[in-house]
Structure formats: structure tokens, C-alpha cells
């Protein structure tokens, strides 16, 4: 279907349908699991495996088409715009959770504590939650019988600061890799990519370690009330994105090793590096607003 100069149009493909089956199985698997039905986890894992199969097959097709030279500049531009807008939508997803955090801290907590400056706030506190004093972190939520609160929270300048340094460094190493790729410095490229992957893995290890401390020692859990809620949901979704990003980095490193990319053919590489920078920037937001301020 493609010829020189015209836009490459792919043939009919079965990968999207396989992707639908994957997401469908994951959706009903997860819902069933939550409801305690035995089939739930199996369906979820089945869906996940199908999803990996789909991604492997779909991307393999794309890589073959790319290496066969089907894609001109215009297809490349489509991919770039596509990845850019995808990251934009991801930013908006995190925006919802950051918005929830800011709303809670600036409006909800003072309102419940009677310090928001309105009659309604004073009455809410007096009539409903007279023992609630507010503040952030919320060590003692309004109803401590249901949401127990926590003993302490994670320190700013402990693991979180180390993880900040790790992610910032990984942002530098992937830029190094980009430079090496453009300059044909193959050894440096592989070395800096492996380094980036390792930094991603160390970050994830430290975060898991942090979660363990939170649950075991500090009593900081998802059920601790609003502080635990925002802490784990924001860092958790970020951690999920770091996991996805690390997997993508590993694949890209393997593709670098196979010499798939050149200075004029590096969309796959750049897409992953954009994604990694995005994850990096989200973390900076987390460090400032979740751990620090």
C-alpha cells in the first residue's frame, strides 16, 4: 500500500481486537476479584498476559515496518504528535489527583476543623467533628474509629530526597544516551542506557522499601485517612508509571544494542525519553507537595 512519498497506511490488523480482549478481561477480572469471586484474579492475569502479547506483537509489527523503511517523515511526525498528546493526557490524569490534594489541604481540612472562616465551617466542626483540629499531615482524622490516622509520616530528606536525586540523575543519563546516539558513540549509549534502567530499578526498590516502612512502622496506610489516601494514591500511580517507564527503557536499551536507531531514526528512543522526563517532572511535584510542603 505504501509507495515513496505517500503516507504509509497499514493493512487490516488483528492487534487492536486482541488489545480489546485484554482490557475487557482485565476489567471484568478486576471487578470480580474485588467482589471475591475466584475467577477474578485468573481473568485479570489472563488479560494482562494478553496485553503483553498484544504489545509485543503490535510493536514488533511497527518496528518491522519502520526498519523496512515504510515510514517517511510524515509518519514520524504523527508518532511524535501522538506521543506528545498522550503525555499531555497523562499529565491531566495526575492533575486530578494533585487537584484532590490541594482541595483537601486548602478547603476540606480547614472546613472540617472550623477554621475555614465561614459559619458552615464552624458549625460543621462544632456539631459533627468537635474533636477534629485539622493541620497537615492529618494524624488524627475526624473519625479515628474508622480511619485510624498514623504515628508519623515519611521524612522529606530521607528516602524521598534520595529518590529525587536518583530520578534527576536518570534524567541526565538518558540525555547522555541521546547525545551518544546522535554522535554514534555506541559504547557510551549502551552504558548510559543501562545506567538509566538501573536507576529506575533502584528508585522502585527504594519506594517499595518506603512503603514497607510506612505500613510496618509508621502505621501509614491507604486507610489512614486523607493523608494516607493522597500519599499512596499519588506516589502509587507515579510508581506505576515509573514501572512502565522502566520496562520501556529496558526494551529501548535492547533495541539500542541491536542498532535499531540512528540519528534520523530515533522516534522510539525519544518517545521513551519524553515519557521518562514526564515521570521525572511528576516526581518533582510529588516531592514538593507531598513530601516537603
Amino acid at each position, binding site marked *: 500500500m505504501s509507495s515513496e512519498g505517500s503516507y504509509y497506511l497499514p493493512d487490516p*490488523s488483528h492487534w*487492536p*481486537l486482541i488489545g480489546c480482549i485484554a482490557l475487557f478481561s482485565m*476489567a471484568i477480572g478486576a471487578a470480580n476479584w474485588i467482589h471475591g469471586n475466584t475467577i477474578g484474579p485468573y481473568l485479570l492475569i489472563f488479560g494482562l498476559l494478553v496485553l503483553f502479547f498484544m504489545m509485543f506483537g503490535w510493536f514488533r509489527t511497527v518496528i518491522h515496518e519502520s526498519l523496512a523503511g515504510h515510514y517517511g517523515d*510524515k509518519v514520524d511526525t504523527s508518532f511524535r504528535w*501522538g506521543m506528545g498528546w498522550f503525555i499531555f*493526557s497523562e499529565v491531566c*490524569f495526575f492533575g486530578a489527583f494533585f*487537584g484532590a490534594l490541594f482541595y*483537601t489541604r486548602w478547603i476540606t481540612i480547614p472546613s472540617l476543623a472550623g477554621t475555614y472562616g465561614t459559619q458552615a465551617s464552624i458549625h460543621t466542626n462544632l456539631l459533627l467533628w468537635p474533636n477534629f483540629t485539622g493541620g497537615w499531615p492529618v494524624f488524627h482524622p475526624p473519625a479515628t474509629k474508622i480511619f485510624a490516622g498514623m504515628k508519623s509520616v515519611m521524612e522529606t530528606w530521607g528516602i524521598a530526597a534520595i529518590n529525587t536525586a536518583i530520578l534527576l540523575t536518570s534524567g541526565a543519563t538518558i540525555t547522555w544516551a541521546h547525545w551518544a546516539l546522535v554522535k554514534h558513540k555506541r559504547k557510551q549509549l549502551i552504558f548510559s542506557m543501562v545506567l538509566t534502567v538501573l536507576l529506575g530499578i533502584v528508585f522502585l526498590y527504594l519506594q517499595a522499601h518506603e512503603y514497607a516502612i510506612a505500613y510496618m512502622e509508621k502505621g501509614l496506610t491507604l486507610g489512614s485517612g486523607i493523608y494516607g489516601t493522597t500519599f499512596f494514591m499519588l506516589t502509587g500511580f507515579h510508581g506505576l508509571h515509573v514501572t512502565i517507564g522502566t520496562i520501556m527503557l529496558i526494551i529501548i536499551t535492547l533495541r539500542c544494542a541491536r542498532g535499531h536507531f540512528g540519528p534520523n531514526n530515533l522516534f522510539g528512543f525519544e518517545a521513551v525519553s519524553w515519557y521518562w522526563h514526564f515521570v521525572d517532572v511528576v516526581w518533582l511535584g510529588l516531592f514538593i507537595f507531598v513530601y516537603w510542603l
Partner: protein
Amino acid sequence: MSDAITHTGDHTHGHGHDDHHGPHIKKGILPWIGRWVFTTNHKDIGTLYLWLSFLMFFVGGAMALLIRAELFKPGLQIMNPDFFNQMTTLHGLIMVFGVIMPASVGLANWLVPMMIGAPDMALPRLNNWSFWLLPFAFTILMSTLFMKGSAPNFGWTFYAPLSTSYGPPSTDFFIFSVHLMGISSIMGALNIIVTILNMRAPGMTMMKMPIFVWTWLITAFLLLAVMPVLAGAVTMVLTDRHFGTSFFNAAGGGDPLLFQHVFWFFGHPEVYILIMPAFGIISEIIPTFSRKALFGRSFMIYAIAAIAILSLIVWAHHMFTTGITLSAELFFMYATMLIAVPTGVKVFNWVSTMFQGAMTFETPMLFAVAFVILFTIGGFSGLMLSIVPADFQYQDTYFVVAHFHYVLVPGSLFALMAAVYFWLPKWTGHMYNEALGKWHFWLSVISMNVTFFPMHFLGLAGMPRRVPDYALQFADFNAIASVGAFVFGVAQLLFLANIILTIRGGKKATTKVWEGSQGLEWTVPSPAPYHTFATPPVVK
């Protein structure tokens, strides 16, 4: 733009018959299914979106008729209140996510590549995925009707704590189906925005793009901005229900009002997602049948952009009675009123386009003119609702129901129907039956007003929305509304019949179809060949 097109023709296909209106597939049911399931062709995928939308239109419509049957007279008639709540919930969800949105995306699939001179959508495989996720998502949503407990019964807005502490078990299936719809919408919007930005034919500058393409550019941007927020909202509901979080629970330091903020940050732009493509359609149809260029074209584009920006900062007008502070109420009131300015510009431009035009009133034009008048009524009632002290009275009454049905039925839906009549000859190669089309129009426009106009009075008199039973004094208007609704429902069968008849036969359509047609899609043969603009046209 249209006067200066040098059409370099469609090089891959001649002007034969139906053999070029599809891929070459073997005979039999399996190859036929395979063609539609695996297709990467924008016209195929557009067709699939439109048919899914039409199917869901009858499903959601049947639910609406059940609701109107129950409300025909006071007292409980045919269903218990819980089932009534399930019907209002599913009716809303299906009409928004299953009818209007897929139909708009279907039109974008069919038209955007042809209008900008592109060979297809930018990412054809992703396009297939965006569509086929929807049948799976709606399978999950519909399956909730058969689950233990009940289907979702908290209204399409699924406010916490109705959906958290008090939601039925099926709520979790609803949540995951919304996730699938969201993934579908995000990927679909991404594809459309990339197509518009990257696939325009040489010479097709941004300002030369048809208004329909412009509206979809803005719509796609809004979808990418707010569908992830909806995903966040349902995720928070899910974790509040099952994983111990307290986003929306004051006992843990959260706030049910937070739900409304997150939801309406998605929800208000969503209504522009539903209406923007309709604006685009009307801006194509009115000039065609007025045989004039669109009045104030560039202002139309600025108005669309202004509406999109404003739509992101007005969400709390849905929350005037929740106790938000006075300063917030004032801000959101004035910001909402400001939207009337660009909307007024658009209505003014449509009317000015018709002014002194050589107008004819074929079915698409009838729907378009009805759109301008009746959407404006919906806009005015929206303006009334934006006034904070007035909204204290209107909130949660039938006045709100009347308002949003006026912008959605003679607004979005009429525009979509106008679009189907307008472009059907280009899609099928046949003219539709004009007499049947006019019957469909007049029955629809009369019955729609009979259904929804009395709801204004009911609301002003104080009838609350989302109730299966009501006080005696509301009986007359409710009976009238129910009669109108059933007539409207029957009228849509004429629409279905007309489409099927047009697909199967009818007068051959010419390339240009309409005397006053403008734009690249009218330069390719009717029916449009399976692949158009493999070599881009040159737009001067």
C-alpha cells in the same frame, strides 16, 4: 477555499461501481466479520461508530420511554423506584457516552480526512482499537442490569456518597466500563488531533480548514484534557469503595464535595465535547443551503476557541447550592455568563449567513435551522441557570432537565441527524428519500418540543428531577410530555427506514450532491471511494 481547489484526482481508483467501495474480500460471513473487525480504514471505522451510536440510541431511547411511561401519571405505574433510578442513570450514560460521542467521532472519522485532503487517519490501527473498545465497554455497562442488587442507580453523575457508601455492587463494573470508554475516547481524540495537525494537504492552512475540522480540533483537545480527569474520578470512587481511601469521606478528612469538583471539571467541558462538533456540522450545512460563504468565518473559529477555554473554568455552576463560598459563586456565575458572548457570536453568524441567502430547505437544512432556534432556547435557559439566586430555585428541578435536553436533543442530536442526511449521499452514493426525511423532521421537531417544553413549567412550579412519582398538580404537563416522547420515539423509526432505503438504493448522487456544496469531500465521487486522496490534492 472551495473555489480554488485543484483536485488532482483519486489515482488509485477509477469511477467504476460498488467494487471500489470496499476492500476485496472473499464471500461468506467470516471474511465479512473479519473485514469490519480488523479494518484500519477511516471510512469503515466511521461507519462502525455511526451504527454503534444508532443502536445505542434505540437502547437509551427505550429507557427514556420507560421513564416517560412511568411518569405518564402520578403514582407508581410500571416499575419500582429503584428500577426507575437505574433507568435514569443508564439512559444518561448511554446517551452521552454511547450515542452523541460515538456519532461525533464517527463523523470525524468519515469527514476529517476527506475535508483536509488526507489519505486516512494518522494512526489507523489505533483508530480501530478506539472503536472496538466501545462494544466491550457497553457490554459491561449493560450487564450491570442483570447483576445481583441492581444496576447503577445514582444518576449519570454518580455523586459520592451515592456511588461510594451506597452504590450497588455493580458500581465496580460501571467504573471499569467507564475506564474502557475513557481509553477509547482518549485514543480517538489523540488520533483526530494528530490527523488535523499533521495530515493536511498542501495549502490547507489552519485558517482554511472547514469549521467542522476546527470544532473537532478543539473537541479533541478538550477530550484529552478532561477524560483523564473522569478516569481519576472513577478511580477515586473505586478506592473509596474497596481500598480504604477517604477522598470523599469526611470521617477520614475527605469531602463528598470534592467528588463534585472533580466530576464537573470533567463534566462541564464534556457538554462542549457533545455540542462543539454539532456547531461544526451546522456551520457546514447552513452556508451550503444558503448558497453563501459562512459569515464571519474567522470569528467563528475564535468563538470556538474561546468557548473551549471558558468551559474549563466554569464547573462549579453545577454546585451553587452546595455551600461554596460567595466569592466562588460570583466567579463561576460571571465566567459562565461570559460563555454567552462567543455563543452569541456563533448564533449571530449563522443567522447572518442565512440573511439574503438563496435558501432552500432540504432535510439537513430543516434540522440545521431548527438547531439554531431551539439550541438558542437551551442556551437562554442555561443563562437563567447561571444566575446564582435564580439557580437556588431551579437546582434539581425539571427546569434543569428541560435545559439540558434542549441543548442535547434539538442541539447535538438534531445536528447529528442533519449531518447524516447531509453526507449520506456522499457515503452511500444514493439520495435519501426527501419526503420521508421531511416527515421525520417535522414529527421530531414537534414531538420534541411537546416533550421538553412543558418541563420548563414543571421545573418552575417546583417538580424535582429524578423522581418516579410526583404531586397531583404536575400531572397534566407530565402526560403531555410522555405523549410527545412516544411520538418522538416512533419518528426515529422513519429515520432508520430512510437510512436503510438509501443504502439499498435510490436516486444516484452526483459528485457535488448539493448545489451549494463547498469543501474537498464534495470533489470525490459518490459514494466516496474506499481510499481517497492517496495523492494529496493541492489547495490554493
